[in-house]
């Protein structure tokens, strides 16, 4: 209510200041609208110190993804500050599983079971296209929020999905990085440039191979986006830029996929199914795998520091045509939440520079605020993350902007893996991928 009154008053005031409205008309209209009494309260509310704004009350139910084993504790810590200012606000936190996040979020949102959701960019286009979550465009574009809005990164990228802003960004996450044991690379006779060309990369893998002891590389441990960035690096995509046709089955994509498949065929990569997300990082930390393809949150799974020199590099490895698939994560508010004003205040609190820095620093990801660094980001995260950030940003590529992208990506994984395991040829696999794209998008 205050916000609406404030907007009305601002509109009148701006017209008066711009000379389109006389002082007499301004006051008359203000009184005519019955705003005079509330105007003072409305304006005063804007200047009221935060600790006094304790009129907020209610229960806030979070549904978030587990970025680290301490996820809930991190949120409880952030909640402590909010609760100190607003004692009548209580919090509940529930984790979803990454393998079932879409399922859990969809059912929870449909049932109104939670208020604030942590949602990754892969699902964003779907939610932008429906009304399951609150459209935050007017709140984010509110002039009163302009100063804060300027501190958030990635709103421009978000607007690529449509005109509505459905969430506040909290992280920039690299879904498929290569964790490299540099001691093994050096022992094989290579230096930091080993991944600049495919041939050099492959030679290094061959020399690092110790059958029965060390696998040179583990692929498919976290398959989300792994082949997709190979597709993008080779100039392909699920759909053409104008989203009018499938764009998968191209000679360059076939070549790139053949190269990836050859690592399995030549036993340089662990057979599919050897490691999963839970034991892959342990295998890397234990020296069973020299290079691990996985997302950056794996830095929170292994016990740091590792007993060897390691670094993060983009995947696929060759410098030419390198691409890095990444996504943004947001907080969104359930449209069925009983108190969206409270949820907006909470979402803003959770994404301040201080809290975003704290959360990202403990989650193996990069914050989505320009002021995060000045608020302590980098004090706990592995230094390799900060070191790798420029290359990840340089080669950054996000998902394509059409609803259903996530389900296309999920369905294509199995088809691509079939050519890695030798069940089908690369050409057959890519033809199947193209069929999935057509079947799911109607193009």
């Amino acid at each position, binding site marked *: 209510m205050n916000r609406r009154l404030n907007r009305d008053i601002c509109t009148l005031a701006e017209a008066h200041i711009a000379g389109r409205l006389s002082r007499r008309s301004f006051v008359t209209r203000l009184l005519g609208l019955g705003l005079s009494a509330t105007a003072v309260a409305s304006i005063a509310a804007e200047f009221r110190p935060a600790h006094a704004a304790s009129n907020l009350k209610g229960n806030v139910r979070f549904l978030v993804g587990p970025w680290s084993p301490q996820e809930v504790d991190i949120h409880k810590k952030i909640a402590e500050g909010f609760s100190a200012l607003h004692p009548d606000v209580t919090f509940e936190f529930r984790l979803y599983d990454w393998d079932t996040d879409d*399922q859990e979020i969809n059912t929870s949102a449909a049932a109104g079971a939670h208020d604030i959701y942590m949602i990754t960019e892969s699902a964003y286009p779907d939610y932008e296209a429906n009304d*399951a979550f609150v459209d935050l465009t007017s709140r984010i574009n509110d002039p009163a929020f302009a100063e804060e809005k300027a501190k958030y990164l990635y709103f421009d990228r978000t607007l690529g999905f449509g005109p509505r802003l459905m969430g506040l960004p909290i992280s920039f996450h690299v879904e498929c990085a290569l964790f490299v044991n540099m001691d093994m690379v050096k022992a094989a006779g290579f230096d930091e440039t080993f991944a600049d060309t495919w041939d050099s990369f492959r030679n290094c893998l061959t020399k690092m191979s110790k059958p029965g002891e060390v696998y040179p590389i583990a692929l498919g441990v976290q398959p989300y986006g792994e082949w997709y960035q190979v597709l993008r690096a080779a100039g392909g995509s699920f759909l053409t830029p104008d989203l009018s046709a499938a764009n998968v089955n191209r000679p360059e994509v076939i070549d790139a996929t053949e190269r990836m498949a050859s690592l399995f065929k030549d036993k340089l990569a662990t*057979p599919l*199914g050897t490691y999963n997300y839970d034991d892959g990082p342990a295998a890397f930390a234990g020296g069973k795998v020299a290079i691990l393809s996985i997302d950056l949150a794996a830095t929170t799974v292994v016990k740091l520091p590792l007993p060897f020199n390691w670094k993060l590099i983009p995947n696929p490895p060759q410098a030419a045509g390198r691409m890095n698939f990444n996504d943004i994560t947001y907080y969104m508010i359930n449209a069925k939440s009983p108190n969206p004003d409270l949820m907006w205040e909470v979402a803003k609190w959770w994404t301040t520079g201080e809290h975003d820095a704290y959360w990202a620093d403990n989650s193996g990801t990069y914050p989505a605020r320009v002021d995060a660094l000045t608020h302590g980001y980098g004090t706990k995260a592995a230094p390799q993350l900060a070191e790798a950030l420029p290359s990840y940003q340089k080669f950054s590529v996000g998902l394509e902007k059409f609803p259903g992208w996530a*389900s296309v990506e*999920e*369905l294509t994984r199995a088809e691509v893996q079939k050519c890695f395991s030798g069940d089908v040829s690369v050409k057959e696999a890519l033809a199947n991928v193209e*069929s999935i794209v057509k*079947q799911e998008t109607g193009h």
Partner: protein
Amino acid sequence: MSTEPGRMRLSPEEHARLRRRARLRREVSGWAFLGPMFACFVLFLVVPVLGTAWWSTRFGGLIGGTRFVGLDNFTRLPSLVGAPQAIWNTVVFAGASVPLILAGALGIALLLARLERGGAIYRFLVYFPVLVPGVVAALIWLFLTNSDFGLFNEILRAFGLPPVTWFATDTALGVLVALDVWRNVGYWAMFFVAAIIGLPGELYQAAKLDGASAFARFLYLTLPMLRRIIFFAVVVSTIWAFQVFDTAIVLTRGGPAGATTTVVYRVWQYVFGSSNKVGYASAISLVMIVAILALTLLQMRLLRSRRGAD
């Protein structure tokens, strides 16, 4: 009602009225007892099936709108990429796990039925995996099959054999079958033990006197007399096998390369993984209900006709 000293006599109308009332009371109390079960049956079975039929004619998702598409969801099913693999995996799983479970259960039951001392302990041990929830069982097997420190590979290493990737494309479905057998064999063994203990002992004594071997007694006495329970076990375990899902999602997430993607897993992917494919999932579910029904009828026909021939 007319009365005489020491005796009560009812007019025919009153007799009929009281009979009607008694019948009504019986009916009402019968329905009252049936009511809760019937309500659950309607609420949790009939309504969902009707809902699935409704969804199967729609395009859309759990959130957001839907629109009527007629039978499009059904006509598109055969062309779905990965559908044949999901069906094949399910059929292979059922085809492997049901015979193994029932043969194993029967073998265990025959052994348990012969025990004279300590039978309860062995029965508990055999039944124990049944008490373990599917998700927990899957987690136990994740540790057993771990490439680096799993028990199975440790045993192989102890014998000087190379470790095996248990969840590779060509072995993952086998692990799922093994887990299913481990979980269910005890359940059916208990059914068979109870049935075997109840078999008439004099028939076996007579057969022994006639010189029938143990195998002949099993083949010509035990098996025919257990036919009803075996028939029940075949039907029910086949239906369960076609519904395999929980262990597939925990152990392998349907992978690798779709090697453990089953029909129900695919349904789950479409219902919750996509934002607008509930119609596909519902159509697959209805086809599956019909397929299971048809298979059950076929099994009943085959097994009953054989029983009739006895």
